[in-house]
């Protein structure tokens, strides 16, 4: 039972990597992976919220009464989401525009609340931090992978995060497979990636 902090961290990277293993938090995964930049940005924002809320909830876990815990968790999470929202507006405004409604919606991302409920509310600060960071990085990795796949094949470009520069990957004769950047393509890509993950085996 006693897992080390390192284990708590690494499980998020493979064994419990969201959204592939824990099929949660799908909406942002589908919506913001059109370009690599968006994917990475969303991942980092979520990771920030995840880590902060995990820490805080873990600290407060003995103060919060059981029957209003969800409401309290939500307040904590929402607070950090707004922090992210404000900070992003101030320092990465173009990205904020692209991610749009999905930044405030981090608050209802099942992963964040799920970790708060399932992990942080039961464990100490250090493991909660490790757990949050691991899951967050795992989430970011998944988003990145999916967005690379979608952008490179779907638009033929690669948008470098932060700099917002789109680099064409293929020659001019390449006919981008636009389907992948459309909504249905997002579903199909994610479905197929899940399949690949299943084939690679659990744990």
């Amino acid at each position, binding site marked *: 039972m006693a897992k080390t902090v390192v284990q708590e961290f690494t499980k998020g990277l493979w064994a419990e990597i969201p959204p592939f293993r824990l099929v949660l938090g799908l909406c942002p995964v589908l919506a913001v992976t059109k370009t690599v930049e968006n994917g990475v940005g969303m991942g980092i924002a979520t990771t920030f919220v995840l880590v902060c809320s995990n820490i805080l909830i873990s600290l407060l876990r003995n*103060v*919060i*009464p059981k*029957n*209003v815990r969800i*409401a*309290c968790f939500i*307040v*904590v999470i*929402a*607070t950090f989401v*707004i*922090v992210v929202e*404000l*900070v992003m*507006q*101030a*320092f990465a*405004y*173009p990205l904020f*525009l692209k991610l749009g409604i999905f930044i405030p919606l981090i608050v209802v991302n099942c992963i964040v609340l799920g970790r708060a409920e399932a992990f942080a509310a039961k464990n100490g600060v250090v493991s909660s931090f490790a757990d949050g960071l691991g899951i967050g990085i795992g989430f970011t990795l998944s988003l990145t992978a999916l967005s690379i796949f979608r952008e490179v094949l779907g638009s033929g470009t690669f948008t470098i995060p932060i700099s917002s520069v789109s680099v064409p990957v293929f020659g001019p004769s390449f006919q981008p497979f636009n389907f992948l950047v459309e909504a249905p393509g997002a579903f199909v890509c994610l479905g197929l990636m899940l399949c690949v993950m299943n084939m690679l085996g659990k744990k």
Partner: protein
Amino acid sequence: MREMIRLFLVIFLFSCVSGGLLAVVRSGTQERIEYQQLKFVKGPTIKEIMEGCSNDPLSDRFKIMDGDKEISFFVGEFDGKRSVVAFESFGKGFGGDIGVIIAVNLETDEIIGIGVTTHSETPGLGSRAKSEPDLSSQFKGLSIKDPFKVTADGGKIDSISGATITSRGVCGAVVTSASIYERLKNDILKKIKA
């Protein structure tokens, strides 16, 4: 009963603390956010429609209260004269409001140019209002006092095919700006001179 009070208190405290905390963050970032919004949302459009001006309209801006709404005006200097103002107004589009920036020559009341700033129109159709100049270029050189309507409604602005509502929204925004302009022209002149 005690349980209830405890429950109530916790939620209350949590809300208050987080409200306060966020207010602090907010006040710390407010300035920067405003500038960022200008720079990325309106900045490119303003630059585009005021091509050739010799100052930075973004920093040359002032605000006027229009009723309970605050409107920002950007001043453009052409040929050494601060003769052009640009400001934003909104029209109803298909997927929500369409923001249109319109630059007007204060002397002639002639439209220097318009540009779509924000919209949430269907990609590929309504979104062409922003990406393609077909629609916005039609306004260039017209007087702001003209009645703007799309052809479908009996006007002379050709709408983008497949995006009538969007085109209608853009026209609506221009019409709105005309009324704003009319209402506030005196204040604008005052401010420019100041």
